[in-house]
């Protein structure tokens, strides 16, 4: 029995191997945010606090799809730099940022950010910091599909304002 459950555990670990302390990815196909978060929590079970944010495609306004494009030489390196800044600035045990590119449908996860730390404040702040910067400073361009076709999403003043908090 003990052997059997150990084997199961290893399978789960092999399924989603999380890099520590930073795991930063661009994903070209869908992912199960809940399962990744569960794995993150297993990896950081010694941390006192885990905070996460999952952003998904909003249904409504006649939007049937969202496409995110990126620029390979800049986008992922920029995300890694940002995460490294967070790691240097706050007392963190680990940070995970998984971000989709490509075409998504309403309800699909776009981004998962999870932070582990000894105490809650750092983890809360890092997730907030990462999201404000991913929204306003990371190299992603988005367009929405409605009945009239595809429409590019313009930058919002609110996003720049959010980033200036840091």
């Amino acid at each position, binding site marked *: 029995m003990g052997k059997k459950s150990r084997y199961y555990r290893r399978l789960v670990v092999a399924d989603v191997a999380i890099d520590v302390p930073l795991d930063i990815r661009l994903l070209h196909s869908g992912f199960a945010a809940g399962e990744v978060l569960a794995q993150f929590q297993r990896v950081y079970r010694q941390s006192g606090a885990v905070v996460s944010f999952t952003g998904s495609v909003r249904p409504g306004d006649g939007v049937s799809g969202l496409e995110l494009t990126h620029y390979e030489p800049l986008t992922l*390196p920029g995300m890694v730099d940002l995460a490294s800044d967070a790691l240097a600035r706050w007392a963190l045990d680990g940070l995970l940022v998984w971000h989709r590119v490509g075409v998504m449908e309403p309800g699909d996860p776009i981004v998962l950010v999870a932070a582990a730390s000894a105490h809650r404040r750092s983890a809360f702040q890092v997730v907030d910091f990462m999201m404000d910067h991913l929204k306003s400073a990371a190299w992603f*361009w988005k*367009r929405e599909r409605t009945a009239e076709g595809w429409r590019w999403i313009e930058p919002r003043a609110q996003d720049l304002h959010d980033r200036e908090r840091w």
Partner: protein
Amino acid sequence: MLFLGPLSDLFDTAEMSLPAPLSWGQLLEAVPRTVAEQLQGERIHVACQGHVLPDKTALVALDGQEIALLPPVSGG
């Protein structure tokens, strides 16, 4: 040379090849006037070989190098 995000709608194709070496002035002359006007806006950034230029007008692209024209990122 790559046109990213909304700039990719300016042409039928999202990329074009230009003779090297290429300066910013030569780049602007190689595209239609309406496109050149857009590219000169301060919110358009330019990357060469995967590095964003602090001053796009200082662009000097050599043979085989990739230029990316980067419009402001989407929020939301």
